[in-house]
Protein backbone atom coordinates (compact mmCIF):
# COMPACT_ATOMS: atom_id res chain seq x y z
CA UNK A 1 0.00 0.00 0.00
CA UNK A 2 1.22 3.47 -0.85
CA UNK A 3 -0.25 6.86 -0.16
CA UNK A 4 -0.47 9.09 -3.23
CA UNK A 5 1.83 12.14 -2.99
CA UNK A 6 -1.07 14.58 -2.97
CA UNK A 7 -2.69 12.85 0.00
CA UNK A 8 0.63 12.79 1.83
CA UNK A 9 0.99 16.54 1.35
CA UNK A 10 -2.58 17.13 2.50
CA UNK A 11 -1.98 15.00 5.60
CA UNK A 12 1.15 16.97 6.43
CA UNK A 13 -0.79 20.19 6.05
CA UNK A 14 -3.56 18.92 8.32
CA UNK A 15 -0.91 17.84 10.83
CA UNK A 16 0.69 21.26 10.59
CA UNK A 17 -2.48 23.14 11.31
CA UNK A 18 -3.36 20.88 14.22
CA UNK A 19 0.04 20.84 15.87
CA UNK A 20 0.53 24.57 15.33
CA UNK A 21 -2.59 25.20 17.36
CA UNK A 22 -1.52 22.67 20.00
CA UNK A 23 1.91 24.33 20.32
CA UNK A 24 0.26 27.71 20.88
CA UNK A 25 -1.89 26.27 23.68
CA UNK A 26 1.06 24.55 25.30
CA UNK A 27 3.12 27.76 25.09
CA UNK A 28 0.34 29.65 26.85
CA UNK A 29 -0.02 26.98 29.51
CA UNK A 30 3.68 26.76 30.30
CA UNK A 31 4.39 30.42 29.52
CA UNK A 32 7.34 29.37 27.41
CA UNK A 33 7.55 29.29 23.68
CA UNK A 34 7.03 25.73 22.47
CA UNK A 35 7.52 24.84 18.84
CA UNK A 36 6.32 21.85 16.97
CA UNK A 37 8.21 20.78 13.91
CA UNK A 38 6.60 20.06 10.58
CA UNK A 39 5.00 16.66 10.99
CA UNK A 40 6.27 13.54 9.31
CA UNK A 41 3.68 11.25 7.83
CA UNK A 42 4.66 7.58 7.94
CA UNK A 43 3.01 4.47 6.71
CA UNK A 44 4.71 1.82 8.82
CA UNK A 45 4.28 -1.95 8.45
CA UNK A 46 3.35 -3.34 11.88
CA UNK A 47 6.53 -5.39 12.15
CA UNK A 48 8.62 -2.25 11.63
CA UNK A 49 6.98 -0.18 14.35
CA UNK A 50 10.22 -0.46 16.27
CA UNK A 51 11.86 1.79 13.70
CA UNK A 52 9.29 4.50 14.34
CA UNK A 53 9.17 4.12 18.13
CA UNK A 54 12.78 3.33 19.02
CA UNK A 55 13.63 0.71 21.66
CA UNK A 56 10.35 -1.01 22.45
CA UNK A 57 11.08 -1.37 26.16
CA UNK A 58 12.36 2.16 26.74
CA UNK A 59 10.39 3.83 29.52
CA UNK A 60 8.12 6.63 28.32
CA UNK A 61 5.27 8.75 29.59
CA UNK A 62 2.26 8.53 27.31
CA UNK A 63 -0.96 10.54 27.16
CA UNK A 64 -3.53 8.73 25.11
CA UNK A 65 -6.83 10.11 23.85
CA UNK A 66 -9.36 8.61 21.55
CA UNK A 67 -10.84 10.89 18.96
CA UNK A 68 -14.44 10.17 18.18
CA UNK A 69 -16.78 11.61 15.58
CA UNK A 70 -16.92 11.46 11.80
CA UNK A 71 -13.24 10.67 11.28
CA UNK A 72 -12.08 8.75 14.37
CA UNK A 73 -8.49 8.19 15.35
CA UNK A 74 -6.09 7.97 18.27
CA UNK A 75 -3.88 10.73 19.58
CA UNK A 76 -0.79 9.89 21.63
CA UNK A 77 1.73 12.23 23.22
CA UNK A 78 5.03 10.57 24.06
CA UNK A 79 7.52 12.13 26.48
CA UNK A 80 10.65 10.88 28.18
CA UNK A 81 10.33 10.58 31.96
CA UNK A 82 12.54 13.61 32.55
CA UNK A 83 10.61 15.68 29.98
CA UNK A 84 7.29 14.87 31.63
CA UNK A 85 8.80 15.80 34.98
CA UNK A 86 10.07 19.10 33.57
CA UNK A 87 6.61 19.93 32.18
CA UNK A 88 4.94 19.22 35.51
CA UNK A 89 7.60 21.19 37.35
CA UNK A 90 7.09 24.19 35.08
CA UNK A 91 3.35 23.91 35.49
CA UNK A 92 3.21 23.43 39.26
CA UNK A 93 6.33 25.43 40.04
CA UNK A 94 7.70 22.83 42.42
CA UNK A 95 11.36 22.93 43.51
CA UNK A 96 11.95 19.18 43.00
CA UNK A 97 11.08 16.99 40.01
CA UNK A 98 7.90 15.08 40.95
CA UNK A 99 7.64 11.30 41.29
CA UNK A 100 5.30 10.60 38.39
CA UNK A 101 4.55 7.04 39.52
CA UNK A 102 3.19 8.10 42.92
CA UNK A 103 2.29 11.80 42.79
CA UNK A 104 -1.38 12.07 41.86
CA UNK A 105 -1.31 15.83 41.46
CA UNK A 106 1.54 15.49 38.98
CA UNK A 107 -0.42 12.82 37.13
CA UNK A 108 -3.54 14.92 36.80
CA UNK A 109 -1.47 17.93 35.74
CA UNK A 110 -0.05 15.82 32.93
CA UNK A 111 -3.48 14.61 31.92
CA UNK A 112 -4.59 18.21 31.75
CA UNK A 113 -1.66 18.98 29.44
CA UNK A 114 -2.77 16.08 27.25
CA UNK A 115 -6.31 17.38 27.28
CA UNK A 116 -5.30 20.85 26.19
CA UNK A 117 -2.88 19.67 23.52
CA UNK A 118 -5.24 17.22 21.92
CA UNK A 119 -8.28 19.49 22.18
CA UNK A 120 -6.48 22.28 20.38
CA UNK A 121 -5.22 19.84 17.76
CA UNK A 122 -8.72 18.52 17.21
CA UNK A 123 -10.39 21.92 17.17
CA UNK A 124 -8.02 23.07 14.43
CA UNK A 125 -8.62 19.90 12.46
CA UNK A 126 -12.36 20.18 12.89
CA UNK A 127 -12.52 23.84 11.88
CA UNK A 128 -10.26 23.30 8.89
CA UNK A 129 -12.05 20.28 7.51
CA UNK A 130 -15.57 20.83 8.80
CA UNK A 131 -15.55 17.23 10.04
CA UNK A 132 -17.04 16.66 13.49
CA UNK A 133 -14.45 15.35 16.00
CA UNK A 134 -14.43 15.02 19.81
CA UNK A 135 -11.56 13.90 22.04
CA UNK A 136 -12.07 11.53 24.98
CA UNK A 137 -10.68 12.01 28.49
CA UNK A 138 -6.94 11.27 28.43
CA UNK A 139 -5.43 8.11 29.88
CA UNK A 140 -1.94 8.36 31.36
CA UNK A 141 0.61 5.59 31.05
CA UNK A 142 4.19 5.33 32.32
CA UNK A 143 5.70 2.11 31.03
CA UNK A 144 7.50 0.49 28.09
CA UNK A 145 6.67 2.39 24.91
CA UNK A 146 6.15 -0.75 22.81
CA UNK A 147 3.76 -2.21 25.36
CA UNK A 148 1.66 0.96 25.49
CA UNK A 149 1.51 1.47 21.73
CA UNK A 150 0.63 -2.18 21.03
CA UNK A 151 -2.28 -1.93 23.47
CA UNK A 152 -3.48 1.29 21.89
CA UNK A 153 -3.32 -0.09 18.36
CA UNK A 154 -4.89 -3.44 19.26
CA UNK A 155 -7.70 -2.12 21.40
CA UNK A 156 -10.42 -2.93 18.88
CA UNK A 157 -9.05 -6.41 18.35
CA UNK A 158 -7.74 -5.76 14.88
CA UNK A 159 -4.81 -4.12 13.19
CA UNK A 160 -4.04 -3.14 9.62
CA UNK A 161 -0.92 -4.39 7.87
CA UNK A 162 0.35 -0.82 7.85
CA UNK A 163 -0.10 1.85 10.47
CA UNK A 164 -0.42 5.46 9.40
CA UNK A 165 1.37 7.80 11.79
CA UNK A 166 1.44 11.59 11.82
CA UNK A 167 4.54 12.22 13.89
CA UNK A 168 5.50 15.66 15.28
CA UNK A 169 8.46 16.62 17.43
CA UNK A 170 8.11 19.21 20.21
CA UNK A 171 10.98 21.64 20.64
CA UNK A 172 11.84 24.88 22.42
CA UNK A 173 11.23 23.95 26.05
CA UNK A 174 14.52 23.27 27.77
CA UNK A 175 15.04 19.64 28.67
CA UNK A 176 11.82 18.60 27.02
CA UNK A 177 11.63 16.19 24.14
CA UNK A 178 8.37 14.83 23.04
CA UNK A 179 6.43 13.66 20.09
CA UNK A 180 2.84 13.64 19.08
CA UNK A 181 1.54 10.65 17.19
CA UNK A 182 -1.80 10.53 15.47
CA UNK A 183 -3.23 7.27 14.19
CA UNK A 184 -6.25 7.90 11.95
CA UNK A 185 -8.61 4.94 11.67
CA UNK A 186 -8.88 3.23 8.30
CA UNK A 187 -11.94 4.96 6.85
CA UNK A 188 -11.20 8.24 8.61
CA UNK A 189 -8.61 9.19 6.05
CA UNK A 190 -11.12 9.20 3.22
CA UNK A 191 -13.49 11.24 5.35
CA UNK A 192 -10.87 13.85 6.23
CA UNK A 193 -9.33 14.14 2.80
CA UNK A 194 -12.57 13.68 0.92
CA UNK A 195 -13.63 17.10 2.20
CA UNK A 196 -10.90 18.57 0.02
CA UNK A 197 -11.71 16.37 -2.91
CA UNK A 198 -8.40 14.51 -2.65
Amino acid at each position, binding site marked *: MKIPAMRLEALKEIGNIGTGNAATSLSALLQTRVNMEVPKVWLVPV*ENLEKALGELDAIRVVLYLKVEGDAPGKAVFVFSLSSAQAIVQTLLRTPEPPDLFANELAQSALQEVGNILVSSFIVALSQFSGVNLQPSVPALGIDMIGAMIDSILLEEGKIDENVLIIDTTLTGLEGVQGSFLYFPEGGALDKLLGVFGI
Partner: protein
Amino acid sequence: MSNTIVVGMADYKVGKAPDKLMTAGLGSCIGICVYDTLAGAAGMAHIMLPSSNGNLQGNLAKYADTCLEMMLEDLYKLGLRKTRLKAKMAGGAQMFSFKGKVPQLKIGERNAEAVERELKKHGIPLLAADVGGTFGRTINFDIKSGELHIRTINHGEKVI
Protein backbone atom coordinates in the same frame (compact mmCIF):
# COMPACT_ATOMS: atom_id res chain seq x y z
CA MET B 1 29.53 -17.84 23.08
CA SER B 2 25.85 -17.25 23.46
CA ASN B 3 23.97 -14.79 21.27
CA THR B 4 20.64 -13.17 21.88
CA ILE B 5 18.20 -13.51 19.02
CA VAL B 6 15.76 -10.59 18.96
CA VAL B 7 12.16 -11.27 18.00
CA GLY B 8 10.27 -8.22 16.70
CA MET B 9 6.56 -7.41 16.86
CA ALA B 10 4.44 -9.80 14.81
CA ASP B 11 7.44 -12.04 14.26
CA TYR B 12 8.91 -15.36 15.39
CA LYS B 13 12.40 -16.87 15.48
CA VAL B 14 13.90 -20.25 16.29
CA GLY B 15 17.32 -20.89 17.78
CA LYS B 16 19.66 -23.39 19.41
CA ALA B 17 21.41 -23.48 22.80
CA PRO B 18 23.38 -21.72 24.14
CA ASP B 19 21.63 -18.82 22.38
CA LYS B 20 18.84 -16.85 23.99
CA LEU B 21 15.63 -15.53 22.49
CA MET B 22 14.19 -12.18 23.52
CA THR B 23 11.33 -9.86 22.69
CA ALA B 24 10.80 -6.37 24.13
CA GLY B 25 7.84 -4.30 25.22
CA LEU B 26 4.96 -6.76 25.32
CA GLY B 27 1.70 -5.02 26.22
CA SER B 28 -1.45 -6.85 25.23
CA CYS B 29 0.74 -8.89 22.86
CA ILE B 30 2.01 -12.28 24.01
CA GLY B 31 5.45 -13.83 23.88
CA ILE B 32 5.22 -17.60 23.35
CA CYS B 33 8.20 -19.91 23.90
CA VAL B 34 8.07 -23.47 22.58
CA TYR B 35 11.11 -25.55 23.46
CA ASP B 36 12.84 -28.85 23.99
CA THR B 37 15.73 -28.51 26.44
CA LEU B 38 16.98 -32.03 25.70
CA ALA B 39 17.41 -31.20 22.02
CA GLY B 40 18.59 -27.70 22.93
CA ALA B 41 16.33 -25.79 20.58
CA ALA B 42 13.42 -23.40 20.92
CA GLY B 43 11.20 -20.89 19.18
CA MET B 44 9.81 -17.57 20.37
CA ALA B 45 6.86 -15.69 18.89
CA HIS B 46 5.54 -12.17 19.52
CA ILE B 47 1.87 -12.42 18.60
CA MET B 48 -0.59 -9.52 18.55
CA LEU B 49 -4.06 -11.00 18.04
CA PRO B 50 -5.89 -14.24 18.87
CA SER B 51 -6.90 -15.50 15.46
CA SER B 52 -6.45 -15.01 11.74
CA ASN B 53 -10.12 -16.01 11.33
CA GLY B 54 -9.14 -17.87 8.21
CA ASN B 55 -7.79 -14.77 6.50
CA LEU B 56 -4.50 -16.02 5.14
CA GLN B 57 -3.17 -12.79 3.67
CA GLY B 58 -0.47 -10.46 4.92
CA ASN B 59 1.81 -11.17 7.86
CA LEU B 60 0.52 -14.34 9.50
CA ALA B 61 3.01 -14.14 12.38
CA LYS B 62 0.79 -11.61 14.13
CA TYR B 63 -1.95 -14.14 14.96
CA ALA B 64 -1.70 -16.81 17.66
CA ASP B 65 -3.09 -19.62 15.50
CA THR B 66 -1.17 -19.13 12.26
CA CYS B 67 2.06 -18.05 13.96
CA LEU B 68 2.22 -21.11 16.20
CA GLU B 69 1.68 -23.34 13.19
CA MET B 70 4.52 -21.70 11.23
CA MET B 71 6.86 -21.78 14.22
CA LEU B 72 6.15 -25.47 14.89
CA GLU B 73 6.92 -26.29 11.23
CA ASP B 74 10.32 -24.64 11.65
CA LEU B 75 10.96 -26.45 14.92
CA TYR B 76 10.16 -29.82 13.33
CA LYS B 77 12.59 -28.96 10.54
CA LEU B 78 15.25 -28.55 13.23
CA GLY B 79 14.49 -32.15 14.19
CA LEU B 80 12.40 -31.51 17.29
CA ARG B 81 9.80 -34.07 18.20
CA LYS B 82 6.28 -32.93 18.94
CA THR B 83 5.92 -35.19 21.98
CA ARG B 84 8.83 -33.55 23.77
CA LEU B 85 7.83 -29.92 23.22
CA LYS B 86 6.84 -27.69 26.13
CA ALA B 87 5.68 -24.09 26.26
CA LYS B 88 5.77 -20.96 28.39
CA MET B 89 4.20 -17.57 27.78
CA ALA B 90 4.08 -14.00 29.08
CA GLY B 91 2.27 -10.75 28.23
CA GLY B 92 -1.43 -10.17 27.65
CA ALA B 93 -1.72 -7.05 29.79
CA GLN B 94 -4.43 -4.38 29.73
CA MET B 95 -2.38 -1.19 29.65
CA PHE B 96 -5.13 1.45 29.60
CA SER B 97 -8.61 1.77 30.95
CA PHE B 98 -11.07 4.59 30.41
CA LYS B 99 -13.42 5.49 33.25
CA GLY B 100 -17.12 5.13 32.57
CA LYS B 101 -16.63 3.61 29.14
CA VAL B 102 -18.30 0.52 27.76
CA PRO B 103 -16.35 -2.62 28.60
CA GLN B 104 -13.38 -2.98 26.31
CA LEU B 105 -12.46 -6.05 24.34
CA LYS B 106 -9.70 -7.03 26.80
CA ILE B 107 -7.54 -8.12 23.92
CA GLY B 108 -4.67 -9.18 26.22
CA GLU B 109 -6.87 -11.64 28.04
CA ARG B 110 -8.26 -12.98 24.78
CA ASN B 111 -4.75 -13.39 23.40
CA ALA B 112 -3.75 -15.48 26.43
CA GLU B 113 -6.83 -17.69 26.05
CA ALA B 114 -6.13 -18.14 22.35
CA VAL B 115 -2.52 -19.18 22.95
CA GLU B 116 -3.65 -21.72 25.56
CA ARG B 117 -6.25 -23.09 23.16
CA GLU B 118 -3.81 -23.36 20.25
CA LEU B 119 -1.16 -25.09 22.39
CA LYS B 120 -3.76 -27.58 23.58
CA LYS B 121 -4.79 -28.21 19.98
CA HIS B 122 -1.21 -29.15 19.15
CA GLY B 123 -0.87 -31.19 22.36
CA ILE B 124 1.91 -29.03 23.80
CA PRO B 125 1.81 -28.58 27.60
CA LEU B 126 1.95 -25.01 28.91
CA LEU B 127 4.30 -25.27 31.88
CA ALA B 128 4.26 -21.68 33.06
CA ALA B 129 2.62 -18.35 32.26
CA ASP B 130 2.87 -14.79 33.49
CA VAL B 131 -0.05 -12.97 31.91
CA GLY B 132 -2.44 -10.12 32.65
CA GLY B 133 -1.90 -7.05 34.80
CA THR B 134 -1.58 -3.47 33.60
CA PHE B 135 2.12 -3.33 32.80
CA GLY B 136 4.55 -4.08 29.97
CA ARG B 137 7.02 -6.96 29.90
CA THR B 138 10.33 -7.72 28.21
CA ILE B 139 11.15 -11.40 28.08
CA ASN B 140 14.34 -13.36 27.62
CA PHE B 141 14.35 -17.14 27.13
CA ASP B 142 17.39 -19.27 27.88
CA ILE B 143 17.20 -22.15 25.39
CA LYS B 144 19.67 -24.24 27.39
CA SER B 145 17.89 -24.12 30.76
CA GLY B 146 14.34 -23.51 29.57
CA GLU B 147 14.04 -20.54 31.92
CA LEU B 148 11.97 -17.54 30.92
CA HIS B 149 13.20 -14.30 32.45
CA ILE B 150 10.60 -11.51 32.70
CA ARG B 151 11.46 -7.85 33.27
CA THR B 152 9.04 -4.99 33.99
CA ILE B 153 9.43 -1.27 34.72
CA ASN B 154 7.75 -1.03 38.09
CA HIS B 155 6.59 -4.56 38.88
CA GLY B 156 9.86 -6.36 39.50
CA GLU B 157 11.55 -9.21 37.70
CA LYS B 158 10.86 -12.90 37.75
CA VAL B 159 11.87 -16.19 36.25
CA ILE B 160 9.29 -18.80 35.29
